[in-house]
């Protein structure tokens, strides 16, 4: 069973291990076309429904609402993507795939970095699909190319940050079902109780307080400022968003890694 001779492999390389595992995770999309639907068609459906159902009522016209709502829809779509991270990690543990990786002489961190890299690709894909489609519907980047680029970068960063709490949930939860429960309980209110779909000034006082304290609001406001330009503020929400992201990383990166190491 061993006719193929191979030059003895050197020390396993973190970068090449990461790329191999990222490739593996992305190949899963091919095996589960519903993931592709989730990443492409679902957010577009959301976009179309929100813009044309509520647009007239909220902003006077669908076109005006599209300008307002796109940053929020983008951030919401990207916040839901790391669900797949949580579910996939949970399944990998249950099936013994993580055991297989851990028993191989490879860079151990590659299992996580490969996951994050693959998620980065998925998030970027989702961002490009949604913004591309919105532009067909008439969305205009009023903040210029630099603003557009900055917004894409910010939303991508937010998605990658959200991978960590979701990874923590995926590793901690006992079953994919409880991953689903916990994930929805957190992500759904977090993205709706924000400035994504309506101006917070129109909300009751108690909700305004929640919305303003919500990190998703900061990210959406910053993305909105970057995409639409003045008079929408950029500096303040962007600073808040960056502080929030740093805080979330500071909490959940170590938590997820500790859980990952301990889980057997």
């Amino acid at each position, binding site marked *: *069973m*061993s*006719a*193929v001779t*191979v*030059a003895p*492999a*050197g*020390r*396993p*390389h973190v970068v*090449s*291990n990461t790329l*191999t*595992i990222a*490739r*593996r995770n992305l*190949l*899963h999309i091919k*095996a*589960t076309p519903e993931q592709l639907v989730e990443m492409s068609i679902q957010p577009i459906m959301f976009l179309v429904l929100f813009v044309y159902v509520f647009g007239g009522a909220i902003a006077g016209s669908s076109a005006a609402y599209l300008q307002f709502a796109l940053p929020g829809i983008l951030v919401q779509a990207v916040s839901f993507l790391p669900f797949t991270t949580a579910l996939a990690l949970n399944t990998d543990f249950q*099936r*013994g*795939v993580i*055991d*297989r*990786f*851990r*028993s*191989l*002489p*490879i860079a151990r961190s*590659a299992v996580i970095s490969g996951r994050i890299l693959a998620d980065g690709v998925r998030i970027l894909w989702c961002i490009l699909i949604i913004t591309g489609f919105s532009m067909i519907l008439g969305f205009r980047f009023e903040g210029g190319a630099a603003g557009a680029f900055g917004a894409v970068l910010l939303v991508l960063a937010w998605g990658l940050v959200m991978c960590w709490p979701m990874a923590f949930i995926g590793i901690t939860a006992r079953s994919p079902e409880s991953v689903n429960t916990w994930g929805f309980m957190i992500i759904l209110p977090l993205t709706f109780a924000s400035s994504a779909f309506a101006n917070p000034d129109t909300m009751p006082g108690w909700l305004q307080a929640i919305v303003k304290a919500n990190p998703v609001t900061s990210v959406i406001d910053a993305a909105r400022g970057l995409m639409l330009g003045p008079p929408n503020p950029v500096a303040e929400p962007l600073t808040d968003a960056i502080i929030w992201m740093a805080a979330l990383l500071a909490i959940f990166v170590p938590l997820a890694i500790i859980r990952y190491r301990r889980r*057997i």
Partner: protein
Amino acid sequence: MTRDGMTRSAIEAEGLVRTFGKVRALDGIDLVAREGTVFGLLGPNGAGKTTAIRVLSTLLRPDAGRAVVGGYDVVREPAKVRGLIGLTGQYAAVDELLSGQDNLYMIGRLLGWKKADARARAAELLAAFDLSDAATTYVKQYSGGMRRRLDLAASLVGRPRLLYLDEPTTGLDPRSRLELWGMIRTLVAEGTTVLLTTQYLEEADRLADEIVVIDHGKVIAAGTPQQLKMRIGGQVLQAQPADPADLVATEKILASFGDAENRPHNDGQLISIRINDRAALGQAVRQLDDAGIVVDDLSLRRPSLDEVFLAVTGHVAEEDELGEETTTDERRTA
């Protein structure tokens, strides 16, 4: 691998302890597996077999004790150990959402091989394990036997000197089981050392050169299958009365050859008891005759590993298809 008439050991473990909460999954295990042999770790569910494998494959740190695999300490040099071993878990640890070919290719790449080498090795293993036709099929569409074969192939990509097989045939149909046994024999013939855990006594009997029986995290018997069978006292005397109504009387007669520790076993047709004295057969013939019991079968035979197991653990081997360690652990702590 003999060297100056001495056989080197591939695995040496001393006093391994690992606890999970209150459960002592490993409670001072010692074992030595010689290179180029099949070493069987036999025990019921929850005995600590999987925990032992996990410690020996660097997936779990022992709380106490020492284990050396291929000359490397599992705690101090885990990366070196990982370079020597292949692990096939209780559950087929292959990626369902990749094809068989992609699974093997991925491992080759993870081991740092060039694309062409990884591809060639994948094709070679797929052919060896009769999976070439399913090379590009997603593993989720594989049958149980195919998954197990792919799992074994996956653990062999890096040509490990040591192969850990954790209950490799649990849940397989008899034909797939025989096929897998054949493959394991081939690997051993090529020089691989195999550490096999199983709850199937027959499997240990057929494959293993040496067996350690563990229960509740402790080694309770060790030796070759032959030695273990000898150990529990020479032979088994069994009698099958022609008339089932005589079962009780037969059991009473055979009981006179045992004692409080060694009672006859009644399976509803056959009565059997372990004996040390060869004269027992003659005495049994006379006593059964005197009692007017006609027997269809009265014979002496070597004990099976099942009986060894019963004798050393005090309970019969459980044939639980789930094979989950935790279920028994939970039962025990409850």
